[in-house]
């Protein structure tokens, strides 16, 4: 049984964030739009995931790894001084305190464990901000797997420290020079590479994107954020469930994992996108990297470059389940620009002693804005996932502040 619902006990909304419908569909989104050469590999991943997820042994092993290696459960931290200033009760789910410094480790440990179960000895991954790459390199080292991480050249410059970390962990980092030399190009390159190595390598997708079963599987591996937060919130706060749940959205994995813990409650869900990467807000229907979702495109149907100071948010689309949640009205998607995010990062540092990743700072910036405008009612409770810590961004911030 779930913990106690909020005071009004309204009927739960339509069943959402369960298993996708046939052919990996969330509403009209999702699917497996992969080259034929990858279809069998996707099917094998789906079958392995279904079996593993139904296997208490697998789940126990994963839970153990998350506890002893990744540092779960992460705390729920009341942001006391900031809450007082904003007039709302803000709680931070501290994914920044995980080993490797972001929520990415939750999914990667799950997939790396799955890969070993499938007999794969190698992980391939794409990365933008470097956090997923670092998490993949970490899990590979932990489980004795090889790791190859594809990263856009531009992101490698912006996140040089993470490149070094990955290499130190023993991963091969492959620069991607195509297109905008950022996350979307790294993703394309990882898919192209996967076609040739499906028998030996598991493609460890870093967000709730990609062909079925990835959006579903990654959300399930990230569900630990929402499930933990819900139990912690129920223990901490009389209302049991927060009034508002907020998370930043690039592809949308930390948001999906967070939302999954609250989809059956009355909590209002908010996904915060970067202004220059607002797939849910400004994207149109399309197919990219194996799934049908909302993507930024020009008038000719070419995928356009996303722009954000947060490398993890400049993916030009969102995961298919977010597109579906948007259509259902179950989650609202809003945008925040670079400057507002930087301001929020500084404010959190100075009021709570926490330097957030610039991705998470977007979510916080919206909370600050919405509290100021009254959109978040005075005294209401807000749960915000702090998806990662700001260490990787300090050099960016140093140049701007």
């Amino acid at each position: 049984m779930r913990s106690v619902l909020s005071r009004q006990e309204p009927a739960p909304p339509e069943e959402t964030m369960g298993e996708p419908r046939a052919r990996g569909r969330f509403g009209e989104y999702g699917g497996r739009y992969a080259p034929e050469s990858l279809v069998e590999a996707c099917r094998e991943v789906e079958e392995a995931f279904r079996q593993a997820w139904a296997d208490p042994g697998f789940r126990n092993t994963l839970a153990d790894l998350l506890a002893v290696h990744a540092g779960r459960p992460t705390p729920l931290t009341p942001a006391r001084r900031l809450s007082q200033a904003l007039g709302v009760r803000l709680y931070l789910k501290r994914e920044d305190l995980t080993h490797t410094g972001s929520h990415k480790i939750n999914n990667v440990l799950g997939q790396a464990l799955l890969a070993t179960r499938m007999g794969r000895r190698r992980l391939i991954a794409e990365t933008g901000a470097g956090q997923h790459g670092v998490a993949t390199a970490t899990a590979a080292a932990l489980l004795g797997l090889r790791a190859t991480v594809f990263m856009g050249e531009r992101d490698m410059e912006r996140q040089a420290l993470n490149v070094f970390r990955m290499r130190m962990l023993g991963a091969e980092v492959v620069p991607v020079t195509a297109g905008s030399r950022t996350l979307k190009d790294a993703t394309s390159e990882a898919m192209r590479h996967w076609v040739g190595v499906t028998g030996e390598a598991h493609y460890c997708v870093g967000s709730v994107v990609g062909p079925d079963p990835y959006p579903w599987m990654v959300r399930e591996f990230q569900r630990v954020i929402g499930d933990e937060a819900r139990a912690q919130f129920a223990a901490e706060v009389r209302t049991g469930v927060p009034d508002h749940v907020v998370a930043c959205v690039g592809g949308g994995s930390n948001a999906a994992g967070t939302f999954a813990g609250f989809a059956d409650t009355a909590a209002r869900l908010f996904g915060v996108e970067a202004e220059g990467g607002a797939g849910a807000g400004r994207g149109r229907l399309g197919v990219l990297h194996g799934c049908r979702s909302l993507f930024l495109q020009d008038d000719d149907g070419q995928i356009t470059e996303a722009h954000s100071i947060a490398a993890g948010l400049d993916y030009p689309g969102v995961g298919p389940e977010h597109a579906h949640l948007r259509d259902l009205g179950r989650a609202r998607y809003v945008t925040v620009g670079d400057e507002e995010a930087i301001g929020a990062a500084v404010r959190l540092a100075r009021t709570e002693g926490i330097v957030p990743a610039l991705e998470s700072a977007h979510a916080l910036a919206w909370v600050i804005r919405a509290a100021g405008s009254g959109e978040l009612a005075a005294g209401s409770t807000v749960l915000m996932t702090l998806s990662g810590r700001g260490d990787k961004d300090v050099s960016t911030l140093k140049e701007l502040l």
Partner: protein
Amino acid sequence: MTNPTLAAGAVERHLRARRDAGRGLLMPYVTGGVTPGWTDHLRAFAAAGADAIEVGLPFSDPTLDGLTIQQASQTALARGASTRRILADLAGTGDLGVPLVVSTYYNLVLHDGPEAFCAALSRAGVGGLIVPDLPVHEAGELTDVAAAAGVEVALLASPSTPQARLARIAERSRGFVYAVSVMGTTGERAGLAASAAELAGRVRDVTDRPLLLGFGISSPEQAREARRHADGVVVGAAVMRRVLDGAGPDDLRAFLLTLRQALDQECDRPR
């Protein structure tokens, strides 16, 4: 198996007729809009004895293409190529005497919707369509409207495709079956992969639809070998590397003639 007489459209009729006459099929590829006057390449292809011509509509994020076609796509897009402009160019090219087959990623099909997209292909004189990221289980949305517009959607088969699925692909495919010779992306390769013969044999077991082998076929020797297993070949990166290196229509015709001759010689062998 589908009744070939009922199922066959113009592309399939054309390819079947040539195949049944004992000819090895040659389908060269060009990225639409890659150079000024790119449609001259189509005439060179036809003059060199192409049996069908594949025209790629460039996409910003080609997940199944190797470096050469990626570069060609980027070059074309940088020149302002778009679906609309390329189809307008094709419409202005006149009858080449061989069917035109467009290939592109599904995002460009969805952009205006499958119905409008196929109608535009049809108006431009295009009879066939290849969508590498639209596998058979997702293809229903496109195949029916394509058929209504007289466009034959050719599906891809891969060395990793299980046999039951291969039968489904062969049954749903129109025009021909495109057998991907290797687990990899498009691009020139030193030799024909062993997986090519194995896959071709498995496709043969489930259909008599024309069967073209593609991915990596870049020399007369490889074309000849491919012809031993399939009805013909698709040659993309080997053509586009030459185009990117500055080859003109005459150079391309000369190159394709070597493939044509290899295929013809192979046909002369006792089978």
